[in-house]
């Protein structure tokens, strides 16, 4: 199989591209079970929150950011103002801003259209696999054909495991009885994204603060308690950061 439209007509270049793409897709293999179940849960959760089939399909295809989608659902259910939902999703997605800064050091030279496509496709797992393979690549070796197609492999495989399962979830959600409480699976999925982020004491302190403040401020109108909690959490994490840094400096010989 040559797949000419995908890998191009020059046989030598096509071979390099195809090999790198397949290697990337294979590297993503073990993670695909998780992403496909995740996609399914997200699809079901969107419908169980009350979105129509058309709305849920548009959300999965255009937004394609599981944690931001999951974060938006309880806010949509609670009739929060649109700007609060968007601000929350932006904060949840801020990690992608860091990802994009990393990707630029590799792919800054590609055309704008290609960079935009890589940006749309690059989710957490695809980038993590890419960085574990090419994270130490020297500056003059960054962004070569092999790397572009490896990233397309890891991210393309993730996309292909997520979207069909999400669509199946959207279409089958109607068959699942409401009293099963499957919306709660969305909260557990969010929890499973958050716990691995507890790296280092500042992050843990920030998350605990954000959680407690969010409960205390839950009665504020417009779901504004959420934003107050995020500001409090980040402030505590940053303060802990500064304190820890000062302690280490003090102890240094």
């Amino acid at each position, binding site marked *: 199989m040559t797949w000419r439209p995908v890998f191009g007509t020059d046989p030598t270049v096509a071979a390099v591209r195809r090999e790198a793409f397949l290697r990337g897709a294979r590297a993503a293999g073990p993670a695909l079970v998780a992403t496909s179940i995740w996609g399914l849960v997200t699809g079901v959760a969107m419908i169980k929150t009350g979105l129509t089939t058309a709305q849920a399909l548009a959300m999965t295809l255009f937004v394609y950011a599981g944690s931001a989608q999951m974060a938006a659902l309880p806010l949509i259910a609670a009739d929060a103002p649109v700007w609060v939902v968007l601000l929350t999703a932006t904060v949840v*997605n801020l*990690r992608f801003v860091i990802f994009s*800064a990393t990707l*630029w050091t590799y792919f800054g030279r590609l055309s704008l259209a290609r960079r935009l496509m890589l940006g749309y496709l690059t989710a957490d797992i695809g980038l993590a696999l890419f960085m574990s393979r090419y994270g130490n690549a020297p500056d003059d070796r960054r962004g070569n054909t092999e790397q572009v197609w490896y990233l397309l492999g890891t991210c393309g495989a993730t996309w292909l495991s997520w979207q069909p399962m999400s669509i199946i979830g959207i279409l089958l959600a109607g068959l699942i009885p409401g009293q099963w409480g499957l919306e709660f699976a969305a909260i*557990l999925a969010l929890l499973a994204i*958050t716990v691995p982020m507890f790296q280092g004491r500042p992050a843990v302190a*920030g998350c605990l603060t*954000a959680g407690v403040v969010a409960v205390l401020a839950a009665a504020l109108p417009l779901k504004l308690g959420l934003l107050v909690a995020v500001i409090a959490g980040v402030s505590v994490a940053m303060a802990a950061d500064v304190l820890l840094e000062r302690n280490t400096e003090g102890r240094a010989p």
Partner: protein
Amino acid sequence: MMSGGDIWLTIAGLTLVTIVTRNAFLVLGHKVALPERVQHALRYAPACALAALIVPEVVLISGTPVLDFSNPKLVASVIAVATLLLTRRAVAAIALGMLAFTLIRLL
């Protein structure tokens, strides 16, 4: 529940949020440099936002905190977090959490 129009507006807005955050630096390049402090804040913010979203959903029952075993969402979350810390398997954590959530509500 939001109105249909607001939901469509939200979906359009979320699409824009994905495009902007995923491509911010991939498009702008290093014309704008991020100070290290800002990078740290960007790293902490998503975890804090998720914690702020999850904890009230788990702890509050009709607006009041319920912090004992009578709260099925709390028990399920504790089991899910324990599974995550012990096995690092997200799918197992969601499955065991849902199992606990369902069993407690049935009993």
